């Protein structure tokens, strides 16, 4: 042993403490940049000039737009997440067959990952806007007589579908990447065994691949659901005020109406919903081994 090491050892204590020392920088980082702001945000939602109060939550719930925002946040989440997962699963399964050019296709499919959500919103805005690409093409083909207003209060379903299309395009890639990684971790042995026993096509996917993919599906679902609940930039770019969402309301309260308390109340509500959804996934999507372990 070198003397320096000895000294360090004394300073750090026994070997059993070492992992904690190594974790310390991360803990400090999380504490300063995550836990402290979190604590601050939560206290902003509950404490005003006169101490503890539920006024900000009352204000949030009595907000004219609150129930619309709640409704659209859930509608977007329940529409977009299953679509994301279904499409990503199909894409991942196709890519995993390893045909010629599948690698190239993987990069193409993953492209939207590199685009910021507001930028994605603007791209789709140029498609759906009144004088956008979609209307130009439909008009040139003689399908419509005059441009259709997709993004308007009168056609709230069109607006909704436009946001779903944009979010679907933007967010499927991340799910696909997680699922491709999951598929590659499945041992060839299982698949070969399944084939030997006569499981092919749908049967193989349904009874072998999907159960083995459950952990990846679970993380993909958790990540996507949390992000879908926070969807905001794409909605803002495409739908403006037409379809309010919770994250957007938090933003407006903070930056347009400058009331951090109500903005924090919205943020706390979103956090509670996210935690609840995560718990549901963890509870009901446990893989077999986890269930066996308890």
């Amino acid at each position: 042993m070198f003397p320096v090491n000895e000294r360090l050892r004394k300073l750090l204590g026994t070997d059993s403490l070492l992992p904690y020392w190594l974790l310390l920088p991360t803990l400090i980082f999380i504490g300063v940049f995550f836990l402290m702001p979190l604590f601050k945000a939560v206290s902003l939602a509950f404490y005003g000039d006169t101490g503890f109060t539920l006024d900000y939550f009352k204000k949030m719930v009595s907000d004219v737009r609150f129930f619309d925002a709640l409704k659209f946040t859930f509608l977007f989440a329940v529409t977009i997440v299953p679509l994301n997962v279904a499409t990503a699963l199909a894409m991942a399964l196709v890519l995993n067959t390893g045909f010629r050019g599948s690698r190239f296709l993987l990069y193409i499919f993953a492209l939207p990952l590199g685009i910021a959500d507001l930028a994605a919103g603007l791209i789709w805005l140029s498609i759906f806007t009144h004088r956008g690409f979609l209307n130009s093409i439909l008009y040139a083909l003689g399908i419509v007589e005059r441009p259709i207003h997709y993004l308007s209060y009168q056609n709230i379903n069109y607006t909704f579908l436009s946001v779903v299309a944009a979010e679907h395009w933007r967010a499927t890639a991340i799910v696909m990447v997680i699922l491709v990684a999951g598929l590659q971790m499945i041992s060839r042995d299982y698949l070969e065994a399944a084939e030997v026993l006569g499981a092919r096509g749908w049967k193989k996917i349904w009874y072998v691949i999907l159960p083995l993919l459950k952990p990846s599906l679970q993380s993909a679902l958790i990540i996507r659901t949390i992000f879908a609940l926070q969807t905001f930039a794409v909605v803002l770019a495409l739908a403006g005020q037409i379809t309010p969402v919770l994250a957007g309301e938090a933003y407006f309260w903070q930056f347009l109406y400058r009331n951090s308390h109500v903005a924090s109340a919205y943020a706390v509500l979103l956090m509670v919903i996210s935690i609840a959804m995560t718990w549901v996934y963890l509870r009901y999507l446990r893989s077999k081994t986890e269930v066996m372990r308890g």
Partner: protein
Amino acid sequence: MKRLILLGVLAFGVLASAADITWMSTQFTPIAEGEFVRSQILAPFAEETGISVDLLNVEYAEFASRIEAEYQAGAGEVAVLCGLHGDLAPFAYALADVSGITPGGTISPTLMAKGQMAGKHVYIPLMQATYLMVVNVKALAYLPVGANIWALTYDDLLAWAKNIYEATGEQKLGIPAGPKSLLHRFIHGYLYPSFTGYQVLAFDSAAAVDMWNYMQELWQYVSPAAPTWDAMDTPLLSEEVWVAWDHTARVKEAIVQRPNDFIAIPSPAGPAGRGFISVLAGLAIPETSPNPEAAAKLIEYLTSPEVQVKILQGVGFFPAVAEASGAVPAGALQILAKGVSAQAASPDAIVCFIPGGIPDEYKKIYKDTFYKFVIQGQPVDLEFLRAQATRMRELYLKAGAPYPAPDGK
């Protein structure tokens, strides 16, 4: 070394006070604007009159405390002040009567009267910004019979938008109603005063109910994409709309790009008058001014048409002086300036100031009401209006802020 620094500080102090008068301003605070005013406006003034002026750019807090301190002390350094109406109004007691000063150009009586308070004339208008309507010349063919484009009423606007819709099949009226739009200004500074005579006091009046019903009718002819627009320059350029309302800065780009296609006109008038917002900056002289004569000369100079045009070009604020509008070089700025001065000079004007001293939540109260009645098209409901009015009054009450003009008289 210490002595050197001390000497330096002293020398700087002497140099700084070498100017004949100090002009303290909450305006022209961006460095480029301050530089422009010093080199293009104050330097020629020094050459012309031999009076050198030191422009002192400050934030409102410093502005307020210095006026108060010099007034309390009974003697001061600051000779002239420049601030928004809302910056100057609270210090009427500390400001000298400027009614003896003749501005370098003609200022409309409506504008001039804004400086009248506490029984004296407190400031002389220097420059203004506002919100108005920009019209594509193609729309002029559909103007209703008998309507005067320079003095439209809201009924004319409705008939006009309807004519255009019936002729083209498109809703070509544009009101910015996106998340970051200035829609709240349209509601509190244009609709409300034009229909009810007030920004706040008649929030839930019978006239307000009529106004919301009118907006529901008008909204049929407003482009359905309006809730996605934050500024009207782009939809004007793409011709999605032909007639639009917005802040001068948010429509300017359209006129700059195609000056031959657009004109700027005053906002419409309602049953109570022509409500519009004036972002008005004025010039004042503190009671304690060390050199009121030089200050008066500076005010005359700054309100001369040539200097007013320079301010428009360099700072983007529109002239307060009528002759200046004619002297603006041809192009986008001239088109806008013509609209701005026509609006300011309207005989039925109800000049509104932007609310101050209350939380920004007031914007939400106006916007939410609009959202419910107009965008969602729910029936106008007096109960809801009353609840919103209560919220609004609470904001003013809690902050102890005065109602803005025209309410707070």
